[in-house]
């Protein structure tokens, strides 16, 4: 390790923040761009499964809450793109990489939302899992990223409560609503567990990322924490987690649970999730059909500028 690198690492070890103008190793920059960009893309693509139910929301209040939530996600996307831009990449470039399939987004959004209870399950489980990942990132070493995460986490935990509230209404509702709630839990449980990524022993970037504090906990730690927090919530709702092996382990003080189907996880990563094709197609369509708008507004701004210059 050369002296520059050593100083960098020591600063991180001491709990200092790295800021955009500071020197940083190429790998740190690249990894952060990948990680923040992927997170930003997840917020953007994540609008789609919930957007799918906005026009079918059952009450005006539920529609407003859901719409505000999806709007927050767009806002999170915006903060995160800004954070990534401080690392020398443009939002346009990242968007192109998303649309071409070169950059990824969280696989969870390749699962479909099929009933209103899914709006509850997404909030409760998906946002819940996201928060597990994100709360420690408020202490991440890169300043702009850490600050974006502070804002995001505040809103996400609000979303999670809203999701749980939907689940509660469903679980305590009519027989059909209870059935919907259970069905949603059945479909989202394992995909939510997958959100923490494969077991650490199979994870590529982990060790270096943890040293750099752009990853704060191992995947397995976070997954266990999520299970431990979620199981009692499911019990409270009167819903059954679709895992017959699930059991509290008195010795460890944690729940033992079944691993998700990692073969499915890798298929989804490869593009074979239930909705990969549709999600990317939807984003591409929005982008392509919006081109004339972006070009039109740009042309107008330029005309305006040159008219002003001519007048001066």
């Amino acid at each position: 390790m050369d002296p520059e690198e050593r100083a960098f690492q020591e600063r991180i070890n001491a709990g200092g923040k790295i800021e955009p103008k500071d020197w940083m190793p190429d790998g740190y920059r690249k990894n952060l761009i990948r990680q923040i960009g992927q997170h930003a893309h997840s917020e953007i693509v994540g609008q789609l499964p919930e957007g799918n139910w906005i026009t079918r929301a059952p009450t005006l209040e539920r529609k407003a809450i859901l719409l505000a939530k999806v709007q927050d996600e767009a806002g999170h996307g915006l903060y995160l793109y800004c954070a990534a831009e401080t690392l020398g990449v443009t939002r346009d470039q990242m968007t192109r990489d998303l649309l071409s399939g070169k950059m990824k987004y969280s696989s969870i959004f390749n699962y479909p939302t099929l009933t209103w209870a899914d709006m509850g399950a997404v909030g409760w489980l998906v946002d819940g899992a996201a928060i597990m990942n994100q709360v420690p990132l408020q202490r991440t070493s890169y300043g702009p990223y850490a600050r974006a995460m502070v804002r995001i986490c505040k809103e996400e935990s609000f979303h999670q409560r809203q999701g749980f509230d939907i689940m509660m209404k469903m679980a305590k509702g009519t027989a059909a609503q209870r059935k919907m709630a259970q069905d949603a839990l059945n479909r989202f449980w394992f995909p939510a567990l997958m959100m923490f990524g494969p077991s650490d022993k199979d994870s590529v970037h982990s060790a270096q990322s943890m040293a750099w504090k752009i990853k704060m906990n191992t995947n397995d730690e976070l997954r266990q924490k999520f299970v431990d927090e979620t199981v009692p919530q499911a019990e409270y709702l009167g819903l059954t987690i679709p895992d017959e092996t699930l059991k509290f382990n008195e010795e460890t003080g944690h729940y033992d649970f079944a691993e998700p189907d990692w073969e499915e996880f890798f298929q989804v990563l490869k593009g074979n999730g239930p909705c990969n094709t549709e999600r990317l197609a939807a984003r591409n369509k929005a982008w392509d059909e919006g081109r004339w708008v972006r070009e039109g507004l740009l042309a107008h701004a330029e005309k305006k500028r040159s008219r002003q210059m001519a007048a001066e």
Partner: protein
Amino acid sequence: MSTDPKFEFLCRMGDNALVLGHRVSEWCGTAPVLEEDIALANMALDLIGQTQLWLGMAGEVEGAGRDADKLAFRRDVWDFRNVLLVEQPNGDFGQTMMRQFLFDAWHLAQLTALIDSSDKEIAAIAEKSAKEVTYHLERSSDTVIGLGDGTEESHRRMQAALDLLWPYVGEMFLGDDVDAAMKDAGIAPDPAILRAGYDQLVRDTLAAATLTKPEDDFAHRGGKSGARHSEHLGHMLTQMQWLQRAYPDATW
């Protein structure tokens, strides 16, 4: 008139907000740029909030135990009282923004007049809403100007949107018995008196947008009276009302 004109009037205000808010919310996650996604959601949220106020009050005036949700999710097309303009499909982003501008310009004039309503509750809703709609109009007119005076393609699309939507403008200014009753009670203005100011604003905006107002002022009608909506509204309701219709006993 079979029903209370005040109830009718409140449904008109509420249904305009409900239907346009729904249309705008259809854009969720698919706007041309992220900032527009956020702005469209803001507008939809304002309109949903206004819906709750207007239809909530309509339900109280009716006194039949229907709240805003019941009115929004359990009436069929013929009971809707929105103008035809707001139920027209989104089309491309330009068509959506042109519809928004043509409505906002009327909406703000109407709300501004309603601030002086003899009915204090209506005046209060109008005052709150007018603040929001001032901002809507600012955005929609800016966008109409920006895209009208943008590229050749954006100009062409905006002119096509204007030509398509202009025949739905007139309905907002046509008065009927309900409007007469509202005017007599000092509750709401005669729709016709809002026209001159509207025309002036539209003329200025279209001039800045380098767009040409269609010559024919023919006006479709049948939305605000409920006599004949377009085919689009029924399709919107199949989505909007689905859950309430499929699970009438549930609370959400």
